[in-house]
């Protein structure tokens, strides 16, 4: 379809060094690392406050976020805006941007979307429980050599490996 080929990915070492310097820069400039899941928590609070304010107001986990106001007052929203642009620029300039529903070779479309939704539910429950996600706790905590980050990461990889014994047939 496209006669101009997608350019290859960077070697992981080079991308990892770039990401590490970015993470270090974030700590130097703000005192904290990179994150992601916090944005989705803010989104739940914001949407919940519009749809059903009484629910958010009565909820012990979500209520403290209300005092922070609009999500645009939060650094994490601006960071995610940056992430979106960085991903867009990276994929467009290397001709890797492609509208699609990515799935395994033997995976139906409906199966793929159900798996994405189900995996998302587990993640949306697990990240606030862990007080952070792969970037907010694993990567950023790891850069400060925090024990918390390594507890999270060991568990993350162990569970992924175990679960993958069941899901590898649909993905590969």
């Amino acid at each position, binding site marked *: 379809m496209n006669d101009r080929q997608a350019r290859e990915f960077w070697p992981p070492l080079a991308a990892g060094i770039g*990401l590490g310097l970015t*993470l270090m820069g974030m700590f130097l400039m703000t*005192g904290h690392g990179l994150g992601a*899941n916090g944005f989705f928590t803010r989104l739940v609070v914001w949407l919940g406050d519009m749809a059903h304010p009484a629910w958010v107001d009565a909820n*012990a986990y979500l209520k403290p976020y209300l005092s922070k106001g609009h999500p645009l007052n939060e650094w994490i929203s601006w960071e995610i805006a940056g992430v979106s642009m960085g991903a867009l620029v990276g994929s467009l300039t290397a001709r890797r941007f492609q509208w699609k529903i*990515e799935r395994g070779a033997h995976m139906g479309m409906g199966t793929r979307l159900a798996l994405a939704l189900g995996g998302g539910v587990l993640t949306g429950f697990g990240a606030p429980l862990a007080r952070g996600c792969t970037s907010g706790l694993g990567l950023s905590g790891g850069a*400060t050599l925090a024990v918390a980050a390594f507890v999270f990461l060991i568990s*993350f990889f162990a569970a992924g490996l175990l*679960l993958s014994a069941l899901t590898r047939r649909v993905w590969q």
Partner: protein
Amino acid sequence: MNFPMDGGILAVLVAGFLFGYFLEVSGLGSPRKLTAQFTLRDWTVFKVMFTAIVVAATGLWLFDVVGMLRLDALKIPTPFFWAMAVGGALLGAGMAIGGYCPGTSVVGLFTGRLDALFFMVGMLIGTMVFAESFDALQGFYLAAQGPKGLTLAGLTGLPSWLILVLLAALAEAGFRLGAWFEHRRGGMISATELSK
């Protein structure tokens, strides 16, 4: 210069941009690549994450050694053993099943992958369920709390430089082990393969 500074929106926007860019160029917006870490076919997740941790940790340590940074002014998470172990396991399962984590789902969506939208909707549902169960989970959420901002150096009594050397050695071992597995399975998943 005295770090950390109180950087504004622009610093955050630039760091976010580079974060998204480096995830994209390493292929970590692709759920096929992300799930391939757990089948051991493609070790990009481990390699990129571990390299970034070692580079950032070493850099921050150097800034501290030369007296330009107060490490204790940085946000260092406090361990809550059970909540973090189970939360980490749920994110590992979420990635093995759904193909993303919160950050990579954003990269997935902005490289054209619409399945990432479904993952995001799932995350919103999961967080609502968590919020709804928060009162019932209190005991578990707070169980086995460790010392505030506990680091590996604090836990083991080893100097930070030695921890950094050991982490770098672990990363190197992971790169070698990964290369061995990748060689047996026909190499890392390429951009060409994903664009078919």
